[in-house]
């Protein structure tokens, strides 16, 4: 028991040391982040950090509005995501391990079931990327440089 406590203390100390010593950039350089392909638009429909964290909530909220109330706004439309993020190689967001959705979801180990029912490829749909997505000159590092954070 005492030995275990000692180990635990050591582990905690090492952990604290690692966190405080390593600068963030160095840490991310060591981690093999998922590579994300360039996509059609130049800017996401919202701030990218916000989308990265909140896209499940946004999509869930939007789906309820679409299905139950027929509110078909395009900003958080899943079809819009597919339209923009479909891979040039596979034409899909989820058919190969490097495709947009799968790459990240595999990385974080979160199972993805959207594509059991939803089309992962853009179709004849008339969804167009939002005005901001098409015209803004802003481009973030993740989308422009792929592998880097």
């Amino acid at each position: 028991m005492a030995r275990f406590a000692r180990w635990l203390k050591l582990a905690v100390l090492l952990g604290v040391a690692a966190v405080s010593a390593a600068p963030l950039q160095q840490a991310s350089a060591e981690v093999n982040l998922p590579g994300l392909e360039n996509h059609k638009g130049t800017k996401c429909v919202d701030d990218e950090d916000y989308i990265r964290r909140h896209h499940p909530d946004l999509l869930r909220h939007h789906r309820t509005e679409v299905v139950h109330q027929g509110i078909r706004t395009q900003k958080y439309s899943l079809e819009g995501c597919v339209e923009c993020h479909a891979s040039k190689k596979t034409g899909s967001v989820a058919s190969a391990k490097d495709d947009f959705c799968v790459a990240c979801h595999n990385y974080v180990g979160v199972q993805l079931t959207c594509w059991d029912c939803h089309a992962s490829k853009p179709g004849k749909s008339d969804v167009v990327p939002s005005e901001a997505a098409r015209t803004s000159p802003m481009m973030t590092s993740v989308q422009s440089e792929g592998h880097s954070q």
Partner: protein
Amino acid sequence: MSEHQINPSADQDRRDFLKTSAGLAGLALAPGVLLYGATAYGRPADEPASSKVRWGMLIDTTKCSSGCNDCVTACNTENGLSGKTGPQDSQWIRKVHIKNLQNGVEHDLPMMCQHCENPPCVDVCPTGASFKRADGIVLVDRHICIGCRYCMMACPYKARSFVHEPLHDQVPDVPRGKGCVEACTFCVQRVDKDEQPACVEACDKAQHGAMLFGDLNDPSSAIAKAVKTYTSTEVRADLGLNTGVRYQGI
């Protein structure tokens, strides 16, 4: 007296304010009007479906041709159905041939979800997946459907299908998947864009014009006028479901 001197000017200010506001409101209204004209029954994309509208369909069986299957084909194409008619295949619309054995009268008619005002499928759904939208379209929310199939048993029209096997290459506008019950949606994805359901469009294209789709609540709509003018019947009217799909000539 001093109040009187102050009041007129205050009134004037108020008038000016009202005039300006009215002017601004007028300006604001102009793009609003354009927006209304461009979308489904005056409904912008960000507004929910309204209970002021009741979508319905009137099918004239005297115009429905016995050899024609165009409505079924159009439905399959629009919604990404396989078109197979096996016991485990999804059929959202079927052509039905009926014959009165007493007098020999025969009819052909398309049969699909009747979009009841009091839908039994909604009554029995244990999860709330089966629901009626405000504008009368009966739908399944596949995110909530657990595939129990109570609704299939409850439906007197055999309108619903169950997806037994994993699906691939779905149509983007019509997500479908294994383990869920599904049925005719009146092509809700088209209706929300102010378009006709695919079957109606195909029937018109084949120059049969046997199907009429529109708002039953709007007295000026073609369907409301037709329902008012001609005798039309509900299938299994005895159940008191007040179906949105009505038949003429049977």
